[in-house]
């Protein structure tokens, strides 16, 4: 895992914890492979909110059609890393 991806994972976990007001978990202890829908209980509106915060942070568009693919924090981090690389 690259440092960039690791940083992205921590930051995405932080955003999810903030937006969903999750308790008893920190960005460092958040399991990046948890299924966000099945195990965290995220819905499309939560994901849209998170996507907007990520759009602010990274300056990338998250295509609504891609929502179903964004199933874990790790996958979101990889998605962002790829999008950022495409921008360069």
């Amino acid at each position, binding site marked *: 895992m690259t440092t960039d991806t690791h940083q992205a994972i921590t930051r995405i976990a932080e955003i999810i914890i903030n937006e969903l007001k999750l308790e008893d978990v920190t960005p460092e202890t958040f399991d990046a492979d948890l299924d966000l829908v099945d195990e965290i209980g995220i819905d499309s509106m939560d994901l849209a909110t998170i996507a*907007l915060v990520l759009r602010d942070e990274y300056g990338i568009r998250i295509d609504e059609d891609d*929502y179903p693919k964004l199933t874990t924090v790790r996958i979101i981090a990889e998605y962002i890393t790829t999008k950022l690389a495409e921008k360069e």
Partner: protein
Amino acid sequence: MENAKDITEYKFSDIIASPSIKERFEKVRKYFFLRESTYDMSNRCNLRCEGCYYYAGETEKQFAEENLNPADWQQLMEAEKERGITFVVLAGAEPSYVPELCKTCYDTIPLGCIASNGLMPLAKEIDYRIHISVWGNDKTSLEIRKAKNMLVRQMENYQGDSRAIWVYTFTPVNIDQAREVTETLAANNHQITFNMFSAPTDYNGHLRHTPQTLAHTRAVMSELLAEFPETVVFSPYNIVAHTHEQGLHSLFSCSYPRMNPSTAIGLGRSFRQYRTDLQWDRAAACCVPDTDCDDCRHYAAGSAVVTARMYRHATTPQHFSAWLDYVDTYLAVWVKGYDKGENLCKEMIEPPEQS
């Protein structure tokens, strides 16, 4: 190569830095937990309205047998709750034929709404929102629905009842009658919201809208919203979304299972439309099955389809305000006790491009 500045003029944090937008966003997001499914409670109706989608189409929902066993319904509701459904829409044909089943649903999932023609009152103990359908003045109702004095009878049944809201379905033949109905409801302290006739798949009758009738409807809705702000629960953006020449699917991409193959998240994952025999069919599942998707402007469809497109609207304060008005409107229409705020976007703006 994409450039962040080309993608969006505003950051989301800039948009919600506006106190009125932030306050409204916090108000509506408390309801993001709502997850709906719909249930045909009865295959009987005391009316036969022209163009009724319940009796239309080839999915044969009208021929499904009625399961009248409260224990089976309770079991279904418990299973629905278990899989995360938090809001039920009880429809029909006419749900007021089976009040005991409606009560069973209410006892298990206390947030919901009943779509009724309002001719048989539902007991107060079923404390759901009640949507009472209106298709024009009483003369037109008699022609299209074969029922006399509908509005008077509906108002008698639901006088002083905070569960009730009237849903006026605009067809090409009743556009100007909306004023008379709105005035009557306003005089009796009732509320009204607007729906658009959306043609069933096999329907080619005179109720199908044309560009001219859509424009005419838009003008009348705007006048009534401006003149009866306490009575009409709607917003300029609701008007745009529902009277646009393009239907809801074309404008916003319908997220109901019937049009959305993904089962990963959102409506495609959770929404089901049960028939009276407690079966459901993913290929037919939307809130208005057998409606022609190209002509779909139905209020129930919009309440989910437009609402799901938050991301797309978070590009300018104006678009996000319009989206918030839309969501605020539909929470007021669907959730008992939710009060609509003042509309934030007074102009009729075009929906954003698809992302």
